[in-house]
Structure formats: C-alpha cells, structure tokens
C-alpha cells in the first residue's frame, strides 16, 4: 500500500470515527483534571449523567435521524433499563456475590436485553404505522410503560425474586416499590464505565450506519416505496434500527439508575423523552457528532446556570421552534448552500 492510499484511508477512518476521537480526548482531559484535583465537585457529579444522555441522544438519533421515525417514548426504554439494571445489580451482589464492576456489567447487559425485548415487542406493531401515528403510538407506549412500572413491586428473599402487581406486602427486602421506585441503591456507576458505554454506543451506531444494513435503513427512510421495490425488507430493517436503539437506551438507563440512590418511574415521563429529542434536534438530526456535543453542552450548561433555571425550558422551546423554522426556510437554505459552494471553490483554488 502506498503512502497516499494510507493517508486517505486514515482520513476516512478519522472522519468516520470523529465522535469517538472527540469523546476519548475529552475523557483523557477529564481524567487529568480529576487526578490533578482541578475539577469542581459539581462538574464531577455531572460526568456520569452526561455520558448517559450522550448514549440516549445517540441511540435516539439512530431511530429519528438514521431510520427517520419520530419516537416520543425513548425514556420508556431508559426506564426499563434503569429498573432492570438496579434489580439485577442487587440480585447479582446478594446471590452471586459479584464484585462491583461485574455487577455493573451484568446490570448493563440485562438492562439492555430487557429494553431490547420491549423494543422488539413494541416495534412489531408500531413500525407498521407511519409518520404522526408512529410518533403518537411511541408516546402511548412510553406512558403505558410508566403506568405499569408504577404498579410493579419486586422483592428479594434469599435467592428468590418476588414480583407483585400492586401488592406491597411481598416477603423479604423490597427492591422496587411501585411509584416510589427504587431507593437506597448502591451507586456503582463510574465515569470510566460511562465513557466505555459511550464509546460502545458510538462504535455500534457508526458501524451500523456504514454497513449494508445501515444503507438499507437510510434508503427506506428516504423513499420507502422505492426501497421496497428493490427488494429491501422494510419492516425488518426498521426493526433492526429500533431494537438497536432500544438496547442502547436500556444500557444508558441502567447506568443512570445505578448512579443515583433514588430513582422513580416519574423520572422517565414524556418530558424526559422530549429532552432527549431536543438534544438530537439541536445537534442535527442524523448527525452523530452533533448529538454527542449537543447532549454534553445542553446538559452541563443549564446545571451551571441554575439561576436562569426558570427560563431554561422556555429557551429550549424557543430554540427548538427557531431551529425548525430556520432549517426549513428556503432563503436561508439557499444562502448556506451558496456559502458552502463558495468555500469549496476557494478550497479548490488553493490546492
């Protein structure tokens, strides 16, 4: 292989995995700051939630951006991952005697699998619908999941897990108590685990997008009928994207659940889904690097600007509307296109 080919491969590689590189650089900077004691406590406590929301935003982008289906129930998958993760971490500690990292891995894997199973079950009916109907049904499923979680009681007695529906008299130590959710959770999530999960999510999504299946998913998004007519299995590919997104959201949820002592089903309301959607839209629909940056900035910024908290959501709403109006304005679109064209021409001249 000659030198230019090597360089072009490297360029392509670094372009494809740009989000991974950004995340790694930031992780190293944060680690250096932590070891030098240069990071304020409040910022330090935000590192894991930032990782969680990056995972959530990237996984939602897979559904909304890559597959083109507006999902309004992403927090539902997150909640399944969170509660499964907490129960599994407790179970593996008490019954198998796992060490903390092993508990975390076990919780993440089972949380992801459970959310994936739910995603599959929900995806089969939902993905037959289109557009607004699909959005409203994902919203409905998100609410149904939250309603049902409000009624679920789980307790651990010796080696047995007891499940109860609206029954708070289960024997043994109660792990999950309906609307109260899980309390007294051992917070075993670590920043390194969060970073690895973000990296895992990015690699899965980027590889999926650049694979044959990813191209099929995008072809279906751009023109379903044309894609179907060249023999693509529309439901199959949509389901692939939807379930992958649910699994990743479940893993993010498990990390989230194991980061706080208390988590209740009301943490995963419709508003939580919208918050993640805001990250995706403002980062650029379909743009993975954008999702990563938007999730990180939009999570940290409002926390740092606590005094403007009242206006935070108002500002989100205005920005959301403004972004939609601007990106759909023909004049501004032409202007940006012209600008990009000019830049390209200039670049061409210098080379």
């Amino acid at each position, binding site marked *: 292989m000659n030198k230019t080919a090597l360089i072009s491969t490297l360029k392509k590689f670094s372009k494809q995995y740009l989000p991974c590189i950004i995340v790694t650089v930031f992780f190293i900077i944060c680690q250096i700051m932590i070891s030098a004691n240069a990071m304020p406590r409040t910022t330090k406590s935000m590192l894991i939630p930032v990782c969680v929301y990056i995972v959530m935003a990237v996984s939602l982008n897979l559904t909304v951006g890559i597959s083109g289906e507006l999902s309004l129930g992403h927090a539902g998958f997150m909640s399944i991952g969170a509660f499964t993760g907490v129960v599994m971490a407790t179970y593996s500690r008490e019954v198998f005697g796992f060490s903390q990292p092993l508990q975390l891995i076990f919780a993440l894997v089972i949380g992801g699998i459970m959310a994936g199973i739910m995603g599959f079950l929900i995806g089969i009916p939902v993905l037959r619908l289109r557009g607004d109907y699909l959005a409203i049904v994902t919203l*409905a499923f998100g609410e149904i999941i939250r309603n049902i979680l409000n009624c679920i009681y789980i307790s651990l007695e010796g080696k047995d897990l007891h499940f109860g529906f609206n029954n708070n008299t289960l024997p043994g130590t109660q792990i999950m108590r309906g609307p109260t959710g899980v309390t007294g959770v051992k917070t075993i999530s670590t920043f390194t685990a969060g970073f690895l999960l973000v990296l895992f999510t990015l690699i899965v999504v980027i590889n999926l997008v650049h694979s044959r299946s990813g191209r099929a998913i995008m072809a279906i998004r751009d023109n379903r009928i044309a894609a179907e007519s060249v023999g693509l299995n529309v439901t199959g590919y949509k389901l692939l994207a939807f379930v992958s997104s649910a699994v990743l959201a479940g893993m993010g949820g498990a990390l989230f659940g194991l980061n706080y002592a208390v988590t209740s089903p009301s943490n995963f309301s419709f508003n939580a889904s919208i918050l993640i959607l805001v990250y995706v839209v403002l980062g650029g629909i379909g743009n993975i690097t954008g999702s990563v940056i938007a999730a990180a900035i939009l999570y940290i910024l409002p926390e740092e600007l606590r005094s403007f908290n009242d206006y935070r959501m108002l500002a989100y709403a205005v920005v959301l509307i403004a972004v939609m*109006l601007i990106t759909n304005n023909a004049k501004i679109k032409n202007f940006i296109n012209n600008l990009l064209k000019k830049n390209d021409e200039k670049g061409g001249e210098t080379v």
Partner: protein
Amino acid sequence: MSAFMSNLLSGVSLGSVYAIIALGYTMVYGIAKMLNFAHGDVIMIGAYICFTMMFNLNMPAFLGVLIAMAVCTLLGVTIERLAYKPLRQATSLSVLITAIGMSYFLQNLAQLIWGANPKSFKSVIPNGSISLMNGSLKISYTTIVTIVASVLIMVALTMFVNHTKMGKAMRCVSEDRGAAQLMGVNVDLTITITFAIGSALAAIAAVLMCSAYPTLKPTTGSMPGIKAFTAAVFGGIGSIPGAMLGGILLGVIEIFGKAYISSELGDALVFTVLILVLLVKPTGLLGKKVHEKV
C-alpha cells in the same frame, strides 16, 4: 345498577370534553394535515385565562368564558401564523417537532406567569344535582351542562361544515389543497379559520374540564390533549362525527377501566385502545380509507 349508571354518566361527561378537544385536533389534522401537539396547551391557557378573569378580576363566569375563548382564538391563530405557516412545505417530522416545541413553550410560559403550584378552579356551573331513581342516582349540574354543551357544539359545527361556504371551503382544502387553491379557495384563510374554531372550542373544553376536575397546573392540558388526539384517531382522524364518537367512547372506557379494572391503569388502558385501533383499523371507526399513490 345505580353505580353503573353514575359511572356511565361521568364517562359520557368526560367523553364529551374529550370530544370537544378532539374536534379541534381532527379539524386541524384534516385540513392542515398536521398534528397540532400544542392544542392541549391552548386548553390549559384557556383555563388559566378564565381563572384569572373570574378570581383575580372578579368577573362573572360567562364573561370569563367569553374572554378565554377570545384569547384562545387569538393564540391559536398567532401560533398558526408564526410557527406552522412557514412549514407548509416541510416534512411532517419538522412540523411535529415545531408543534412539540410550541407545546413546551406554552407550558413554560404558563409556569412563569401563574407559577408551578396547582390552582384550584372553582366551577363556573352552580353546585347541585338532580336526583333520579328515588335518590339513588345523582346527576350533578356540571355533568348535565357538559353533555348539553358538547351536543350543541357538535350540532353547530356539523351545520357549519356542511351548510356554509366556509365549511365547503374547509372540506375542499381537506380533500385536495392544490385543487382547492386552483378553484379560488383561499387556503391560508381557511386554515387560519380552522385554527380559530379549534382554539375557541379548546377554551370551552377547558372551562368544562376544570369545572369537573378543578386542579389547574401548567401541565393540565397535555394529558387530555393526548387523550383527545387518541379519541380523534379512534373515531377516524379528519372526521367530525368520528371525533364525537371516539371522544365519548374513550371517556366511557377510561371511567369504566378506572372503576372496574384498576385506578392506576386508566391511562394505560386508553393508550392500549389507541394502539389496538391503529393496528386493527388504522383509519379509525368512521375514517375513510385512503390509497397511497406512488
């Protein structure tokens, strides 16, 4: 028997409110082909306006309701002009996200103006009830007024859509926007009027709803809004009789579900109905089947 009857009546009463909200959804969806997610929040604003007029400015109830209707109409038209009109040619994803943004905006605006603490809305309808069946069945005035008001609204709206020139224009635009424009129908005006009617109905629904369920919060409108959309889909979106039928059935299902199955799962039950309807009959009970053109 009397418990059954009283559940049925409160179901029909709740369903009538859903039906009035669903009319707003279904008309906008039929004509502008967009899901106006902010409709539920227009209801919430209407309720707050009526609350402020009646309790802070001590106006009589009917004046409060009228002002709430006027403000909501203005709000609906403004939202349409500022946020939705520039997106006529945009993808449905962009329109839906804009509508969600608008819903968020209204909720947070209300929270800034009226605060996050729930307000207790005093019924605009005098307390009291009619006793039937030797006093074993009590029907409150609120229930009666709600049902009567919704029937009147439905009749008036059906007459308007079927027998006036504007109604004809609405039906034209909903069938084929391009062709309607070629025939000289003012499409923008028609859509604006649809939004105005839908928002005025939202104000009435707000007052009726808050008279029966008196807690008023910035998020009061979102759940009824979503349920009313469910009702509109249930009955067949775009169809006015469908919205009425869907709304009333949904209200009855919700109340019966809460009474006989589980009080926690009432909402879940409503959404399960939505999903089942969309799977079995995606066009709803009274909807028309539309074939997709390639």
